[in-house]
């Protein structure tokens, strides 16, 4: 049976938490400013605990099982991260406290800035952006500010390969540019001839996801960067797939100008059912002055007896603030904990085993599913979830059937350059046993598709609800479970 909503569970007069009575003399409330009605539910504490416990059980999560959701890097979330982020000294500090009372926080931010610089090979880092797409926006705004400062106003276009992340075109528009689509070649690299043809004095830059959404490293990366640079453009790296490159190479060394990093992917901070994320942005030296306000720096150098005095610094040509306060500090603490526990060798192992796991799955699964780009992949790969002899079976059917076997489906229908795409990213934290089990299920589903297509079409069969009517949801909009009686 469906779980009732909090409004359906509400009973007039119940309370979930009691607050102390006022200990100060009472003042009359300003009658003309007071609201008449506060239509919130009324529940006991146990009602609330049971309700949300019931809801949590309707979710699939990394804690429950394999989550090979391509492009999302659903690796294990170490529990120590949850402990360190909740240390009272961090958790109960106010963002506007005087500098001398928050040196611990600033040291955390400074250290992570430094370590991210070292890991990515860049000159400066801002921890301000709240998520990957927010980091992309910052990157776009930095490109805009850079060209503008040089008086180069003609650069209105951003090149976005068709193997880039889905947010890139929207980011380009939001940053005031026109996105130009660049096709891929047969090996899944950028089509160099097309790139050369489109690069000119209107090119503000290129947004390159590398490894791209096919899970492939851009084999001509140095040449691609050179072509864009010679046209006067900047190269932005979408670092959502950085998990494949930790200790393997540094994007800054390859010549990228800007890179965003998803702490909630590569650096193990949890996704929280859709956030919070954190999307720090790293830049080369010539762009450091454009970073969002503020970055953390050293105001007074320390010595053997005294630690340095950390503080906030406003970069000279800053694009401005992109949010209030200082970024997602709680997420930053989790990422710092993770880097501390891994060290240089541990980080390289992460990339190595993420790539080994992906190649292992790819080699076995390509026998039963079409692999359109067949060369060693990085952290993920993309199969087709369709067979020519089975016109009624789609990637969606394969994805939904996986749920019946207790496995989260891969990302489907993305990237758009693979028909009926199934994008699979195992991450380094999954064991050979888990992957062998996944292989077994995938092969079984391929068999079911041929022998009992109708059964697949009706999947999932064992989930709390079946396939939901999305057309109805968008047509007969019900976006609230209870409305105020005044309506």
């Amino acid at each position, binding site marked *: 049976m469906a779980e009732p909503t909090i409004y359906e569970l509400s009973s007039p007069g119940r*309370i*979930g*938490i009691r607050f102390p009575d*006022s*200990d*100060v003399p009472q*003042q009359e*409330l300003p009658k003309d*400013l007071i*609201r008449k009605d*506060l239509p919130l539910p009324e*529940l006991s504490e146990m009602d*609330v*605990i049971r309700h*949300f416990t019931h809801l949590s059980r*309707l979710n699939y999560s*990394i804690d*429950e099982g394999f989550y090979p959701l391509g492009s999302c890097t659903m690796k294990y979330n170490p529990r120590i991260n949850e402990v360190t982020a909740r240390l009272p000294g*961090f958790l*109960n500090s106010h963002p506007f406290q005087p500098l001398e009372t928050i040196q*611990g926080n600033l040291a*955390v931010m400074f250290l992570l800035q430094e370590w991210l610089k*070292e890991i990515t090979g860049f000159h400066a880092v801002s921890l301000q952006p*709240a*998520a990957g*797409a927010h980091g992309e*926006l910052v990157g776009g705004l930095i490109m805009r500010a850079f060209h503008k400062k040089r008086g180069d106003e003609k650069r209105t276009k951003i090149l976005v390969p068709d193997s880039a992340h889905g*947010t890139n075109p*929207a980011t380009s528009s939001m940053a005031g540019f026109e996105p130009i689509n660049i096709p891929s070649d047969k090996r899944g690299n950028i089509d160099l001839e097309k790139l050369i043809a489109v690069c000119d004095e209107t090119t503000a830059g290129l947004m390159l996801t590398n490894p791209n959404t096919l899970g492939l490293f851009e084999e001509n990366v140095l040449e691609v960067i050179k072509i864009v640079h010679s046209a006067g453009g900047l190269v932005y790296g979408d670092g959502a797939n950085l998990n494949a490159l930790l200790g*393997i*190479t540094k994007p800054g060394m390859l010549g990228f100008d800007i890179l965003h990093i998803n702490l909630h992917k590569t650096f193990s901070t949890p996704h*929280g059912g*859709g*956030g*919070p994320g954190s999307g720090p942005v790293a830049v080369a030296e010539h762009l450091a002055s454009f970073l969002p306000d503020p970055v953390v720096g050293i105001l007074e150098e320390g010595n053997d007896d005294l*630690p340095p005095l950390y503080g906030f610094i406003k970069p000279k040509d800053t694009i*401005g603030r*992109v*949010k*209030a*306060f200082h970024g997602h500090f*709680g997420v930053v603490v989790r990422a710092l904990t993770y880097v*501390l526990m891994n060290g*240089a060798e541990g*980080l390289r192992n*992460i990339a190595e*085993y993420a*790539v080994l796991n992906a*190649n292992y799955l790819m080699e*076995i699964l390509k026998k039963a599913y079409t692999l359109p780009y067949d060369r*060693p992949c990085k952290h993920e790969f993309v199969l087709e979830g369709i067979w020519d002899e089975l016109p009624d079976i789609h990637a969606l059917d394969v994805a939904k059937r996986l749920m019946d076997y207790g496995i989260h489906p891969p990302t489907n229908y993305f990237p758009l350059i693979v028909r009926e795409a199934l994008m699979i990213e195992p991450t380094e934290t999954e064991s*050979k046993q888990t992957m062998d089990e996944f292989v077994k299920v995938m092969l079984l589903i391929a068999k079911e598709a041929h022998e009992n297509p109708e059964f697949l079409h009706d999947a999932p069969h064992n989930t*709390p609800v079946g*396939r*939901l009517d999305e057309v*109805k949801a968008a047509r007969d*909009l019900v976006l*609230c479970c*209870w*409305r105020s009686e005044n309506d």
Partner: protein
Amino acid sequence: MFIPHTDSERREMLKAIGKDSIESLFSDIPEKYRFPKLDLPPALSEMEALQELSDLASANNSCDELICFLGAGAYNHYIPAAVDMLLRRGDFFTAYTPYQPEISQGTLQAVLEFQSLIANLTGMEVSNASHYDGATACAEACLSAYHYFRGKRTKFIISPALHPHYCDTIRTYLGALDGIQIIDRSDSIQQVDPLVLADQIDENTALVIVQYPDFLGRVVDFSSFGKKVHESGALFAVAANPISLGLLKPPSEFDADFVVGEGQPLGIPMSFGGPYLGFFATRNVLIRKISGRIVGETVDGKGNRGYVLTLTAREQHIRREKATSNICTNQGLMALAATVYMSLLGKSGLRKVAELCYQKAHYTANQITAISGFKVRNDWAFFNEFVVECKEEPKKIIDFLLHEGVLGGLDLGDFYPDMKNCLLLAVTEKNTKEEIDILTDLLQEVANG
């Protein structure tokens, strides 16, 4: 630790893919830049890492040890124990965005409940699933208005008493669009009657945005103002403090089109400024014009009630470059915290917290008014935050109070050149009478010199 492979498993896997080493999987990386050295500290065990982080945390003086009268957009409210206990359930915090509804009904129903609570709290008809924080929710309201008028209206009027970080964020976001005119805190903030903004509104105005209570704590009844905004066809956005809405008239009564704000006061720790929660509510007719995830109710093939992400045609992954925003990951877990918080407090609890804030702030203000050398601004009603004019330099007062274990508010001179002698103080239900008396006794000492 976090990588489970044994040596023999690695060998078996390499054999299965026909490779002799893991290194050989990276031959597509330019050789010159392959396997660079990373200069990082040596790896620590969990026990050592916890010690290291504990040392860093204890280098702070947090509000655990200090008496907090700081607000200005982040507030020290009590968080019921049940909130974090539920947030720590792995089924919630280790799940991804609910793209696969059949196995994400927990997250999806919780978001629908969040949308319902926010809609009812703000008095609006609908809400989205969240933005990054209060500042970006304001900026997204501006972008929604820009797209609503298809870029034809280009003037944005921002109240000079909107949080300065929110103003700066709006400037950054709108800076990428051509031909935008922003009217904001150019004049003296302290003299500005919030209603004077009305004179700036014209036929080219896309959006007017005000804060309620505003950055200086003032509570203004915007009922007639909202009508004035709509007379010129512009849209009206109100950035509200959600705790104050436990007591005060909801912005829907001002005819607001967008009610946005910072959800941190709803059960989210201060955590040095983030992660927080941007909320965004609107009217039914505008729902297709706003950005952000939205959850809707529907049914499955057997007629069972269920929930899905809906109206996705507005979003970046479908609409690509024509989307109104690129937002993807938002603040899911923080929205869950706010949902649990509002469910626990409910109708009477939120009202009680709001009244406690109001009463304690007014007691504090009354006590300070009695001290010579300090003047409480009382030209407008206030909720839990107010401005104190000081004879002494605010920095010196803040230093003195800190020395005595009190976080004595914000120096407004850091944000507004014409408020050099002003402190902004916030009071919440957590401040006891004893704490307030400590503050006022210390201020009396300052006055005594």
